[in-house]
């Protein structure tokens, strides 16, 4: 799951740095915005079958790769 998520993030953020630092705040680093966030939700649903609606979680709860992984583990 981790590998697949990192692939998704790398494609959306267009930066390899997401691979190196799983605790990097993607919003603060300017790698993820409203649009990227939406793509992320679509890709998560398509890849893992886990539905997260756009208003469901605060962005800070999904700001780093590790936080997203924790959320997915909790849901999956």
């Amino acid at each position: 799951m981790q590998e697949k998520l990192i692939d998704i993030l790398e494609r959306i953020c267009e930066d390899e740095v997401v691979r190196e630092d799983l605790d990097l705040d993607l919003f603060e680093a300017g790698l993820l915005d409203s649009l990227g966030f939406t793509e992320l939700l679509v890709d998560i649903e398509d890849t893992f079958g886990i539905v997260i609606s756009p208003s469901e979680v605060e962005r800070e709860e999904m700001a780093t790769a590790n936080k997203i992984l924790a959320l997915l583990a909790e849901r999956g």
Partner: protein
Amino acid sequence: MSFYTDFIFFLWLLILLIPAFVLGIREKSLRIYTAVSSLFIIWLVLRGDLRQLAFLALFYVLQLHIVKIYLRLRRIYGRNAVIYGHFILLSLLPLILCKLSGILPFHLFNFLGISYLTFKGLQIIIETYDGVIQEIDVLSFTSFLLFFPAISSGPIDRSRRFGEDYNRTLSRTEYLEMAGRGLEKILLGMVYKFVLAALLHEGVDYFVSGSGWYEVAAYAYFYGFYMFFDFAGYSLMAIGTSYFFGIKTPENFNKPFISRDMKEFWDRWHITLSHWFRDFIFSRFMMKSIRKKWFSTRLQGAAAGFIVNMLIMGMWHGISLSYLCYGLYHGCLLAATEVYQKKSKFYKKYKKSVWYQGVSWIITLQLVMFGFLIFSGRFLELVQGLQ
């Protein structure tokens, strides 16, 4: 008497905050008191206008039933898009009728705050469809929808966030801390609205009839800053008041005029509105457009998403040409910003440098102020004056 403007309102506010404070520091639940004081102050403000009061009451009863019936149908039929669509429309209907008042020969649902209350009802329907909300009790719903500190112009809270605060009783220390911050916000809000906004409005009045370019520019600037201090001042008072009821109503403004691009501006200006639009319109439009492949690239989709999003926001302000232009203007600016930031090598190379950010800030400020000129209606007046 009206919300956060006249002496008598503040007098009543003071009277209502004292019992809240006493309950708060004694670690008693504020649930019932919040509902009762909301109903009481709404009655006080609207008692001179029974038509408005009746429409508000009707709106409340309608929204309560729409939410309750939809919750039940959602449990029985699951994520059914047809039922969902009908309930969205039902929830929106009073607002649509109200906004069409200018066109239709009759006036329906013209009451203070309908635009803001509609967001609250809609949000519950949408999140029920998403499965995020499974139940909402009548008392929480009533207190949320009719919460008087934010009833007239927001900030737009979310039912789940509100519910968490509403159903929690703070410890004495937590409450004192919150009430202290609340008082600070109310006082700062008063300075914003009654001192700074009032002063800036003198400038607005002074330049309103000038048509030289510098007079128009001065008008736009005074109008922009006036709008900020007036609305941010109101918002601070609303947020501060809600703190006394143990509700941490979200912030609405965060130094909007320091923004370095238009996307940042909408993250700092009227935040609860733009985030509502982001979560319930933009994101959903984007997810649909990605799924259904409406556009050949995601960037095109995003550009369309921004324009649709902001056009709806413009229309929400009112059905007038100025508001439509305002929405379209901001939609196009956001779309252009997105394309520029994704495509421009120049941007990617220099975006972190100090000079670039400085220039970007100056340009953004001019674009923002021009937006206010459109919003104020003065821009279209000037255009018409040229013909």
